[in-house]
Structures are given as C-alpha cells and as structure tokens.
C-alpha cells in the first residue's frame, strides 16, 4: 500500500483536478490498460488507474470500479473538459509526459518497496 502523493511524484505528473485530501488516499493496486472492458474486470481494491485513453468514459469507468485516481500517460497536455469532468466526479486526475511502460516500471518499483 502506498500514498497517492508518493506515486504521483514518482511520475512527475501534473494535476488536472484534485479534491481535498487526495495526497493521503491509499493505493493498493496499480492497473494499466487502454481497454475499457479490461479496466471493468480488473481485480483488487483502491486502484490507481493508468491509461492513455482520453475520453470521458475513462473517468466514468474509473468511477464504476471505484478507482482512487486516474493518471493519463504520454500526455503533456489534456483537454480542459476532462479536468472539469473529473472535478465534477470528485476523482483525482493527473497527466504525465512519461510513456505507459516507463510509468508502470516506476510505480512497480515503488510498490515493491516496504
């Protein structure tokens, strides 16, 4: 288990929308996918969702599985409406210029540390 803040810092990620207290949310599982149906059947709780999909549906899907936060990878910028949608849903949303593989490697190493 890791605090969300630690993971976000490791990705050099920028916040698009963050509700109060997001830093201290617990992450138990990292899940990375660009297929909504795979995200929907992901297992584990307190998921940090890593994806390069840019549609509204990513946020909806994150909500459906009760994800802790969403990080959009490979993105220096993201559409402003996504940030607004995330704010409305109260889900923390970030984006990082790092590609998906690099992001996963960094997070994987962190999750393995005690």
């Amino acid at each position, binding site marked *: 288990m890791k605090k969300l803040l630690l993971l976000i810092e490791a990705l050099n990620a920028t916040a698009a929308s963050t509700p109060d207290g997001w830093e201290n949310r617990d992450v138990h599982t990292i899940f990375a996918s*660009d297929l*909504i149906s*795979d995200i*929907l*059947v992901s297992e584990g709780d307190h998921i940090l969702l890593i994806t390069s999909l840019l549609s509204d549906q990513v946020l*909806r899907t994150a909500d*459906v599985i009760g994800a802790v936060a969403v990080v959009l990878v490979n993105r220096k910028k993201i559409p402003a409406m996504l940030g607004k949608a995330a704010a409305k849903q109260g889900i923390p949303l970030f984006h990082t210029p790092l590609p998906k593989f690099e992001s996963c490697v960094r997070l994987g190493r962190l999750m393995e540390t005690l």
Partner: protein
Amino acid sequence: MSPALQPTEEMSLRIQELAGNLKIRDVMTRKVFAVTRHCTMRDVQTIMKNNAISGVPVVDDRHVIGLISVHDIMNAYEQEWMADAVADHMTTGVRTLAEEQPLSIAMSAFSKFPYRRFPVVNRNNELTGMVTLRNINMALIQELSRQLDAMETEGGRISPATSSETFIFYRVYRIARYDFEAGGKASAELREQLQARGISPKIIRRAAVACYELEINIIAHSFGGTLTLYVDKDRVRITANDFGPGIPDIEEAMTEGFSTATDWIRSQGFGAGMGLPNTKRLSDEFAIQSGIDMGTMVKAIIHLNPQEKQPDENE
C-alpha cells in the same frame, strides 16, 4: 371485418401491451379524401397526386363501396381507362375496420391481409377515417414515449405504499444511440444507492460494472433503448431493452472477443468483445433474447445477500 380476427401470436406481448388502451379511432387519419362512384379515374389520380396519398375510398352516401389504389391507377393508365368512372374499375369487397375496435385488431389485420390501408367506419357503417401502418407506428411511438415519461417521473421514488423492506429503488433511463457522454449515468446512480444501503464494495462493483456494460451496449450497438434498475432488499435487477437491430447470433455475441464494434467505437476504448460475457460472468442470473429488426432484451440479476452463492471468479 371478420369478428374472429384476433391479435396475431407473433405480435410481441410488449407491443400488445403498448397498444392496450388504444382504439382505432385514436390513431386513424380523420381527414379522408373520398370520391363518389361517378368520379373518373383521372379525378382520383389528381387527388392522389395533390395530397400525396396512395389510396382513395369510393363512397355512396358515406358507405364504402370500393377503393382505388395506386395500382388501380397504373392499371387504368395502361388500359386507357383514365376517363372511366371509378365504379367500373375500383376494388370492391373492401375490408373496413370499426373505429371502436382495439388497435391490436388493426395490427393483426395488417399482418393477415396484403392491404396497406383500411377505411374506418362508425357504428352506422359510415366512413370516418383511414388507417395505415404509419398511423399505427406513430401512435405506438407516442404511447411508448408517454409511458416512459410517466415512468421517469415516478422512478427513483420510494413508493409509500410499500415499505423499504420490499422496495428500495426503481428507475428507468432512456438511452440514445452513440450518446457516450450519457453512458455511466445509471451505474453511477446504482452505485450511490447501494453504497447508501451499506452493501459490500465487491457486490457494488459487480452490479455497477454489469450495469455499465449494458448501458454501453445500448449506446454503441443499438438504435437506442431503455435501461431499468430495480433494487429491493435481496437483489439488483438490471433490464436493458433496445429497439434494434437485434443480434443475429446470440452464441457468437456471448463469445469473448467477438465484437461488431466500428473503429470509432474502438477508439473510445470499447469494442473488445467482452461486454456481454463480462455481464454474464458478473451476474447471478442472466438472460438474453433478441429478434432481428425487433431489438434485444438483457436481464441481469445480482444478489445482494452475501450468504447466497456468488459466481465463480474463474468461471
């Protein structure tokens, strides 16, 4: 009109229900262009052309004695009968419908006989209207829309007559084709409802995912439809009904990885061919029915009681 005429068996129960309270007079066209037996075929052709209609009844003192169709006019052209009186070339023995009859009788008349329109008469056997399939379709769509409005207004409220022991949440969502923006509305509300009841997160997730998959199915693959949530103390029932096009091979649709999604749908992150198999796997009870050009109905039930058997995760 034969009194033995009954609604056909093929007519779906839902459509019969919809037609239920409607009578033929509620749907018929009242503005009727009729001619007397002395008018010429050319007169009828002019009436048809000017009013964009394809059938004109012939009356004698308001009683229907025949009908001229476009086919009769074409025949008259060929045979050079255009100057003749309609009485010489009209179709006789025309079937009429009574305005007091239920709409289902008109619907079965259209499926039993090759005619595309029926004159409608009152109790005195006088012509009062015409009914076509278009009239019936419009009336059914209006009735469906009216019923949906009523359900939407009533939905979501806890019925005071039944205690929360037996009835907790009920809502109907109307879902439009390709409206991905609206996808997830029902599942978000279902999640809220279940959270408020203190249901375990695992069960909430199964119910929310099943609901979401069914919402997306209607949006991505159908012409539009409805999704109904019904939650009582024991279970969540999700029913998805759409208006077509229907699934040609259900077994194929239930196969993991099979998908008819377009590139655009795939670009939205959907179309992996897992929607229906996932929904079935997540549900305690699952049923699907589909008819080509009629639509698809999917019912998924998730038990809220943790003592009950859960589906095998590795199934």
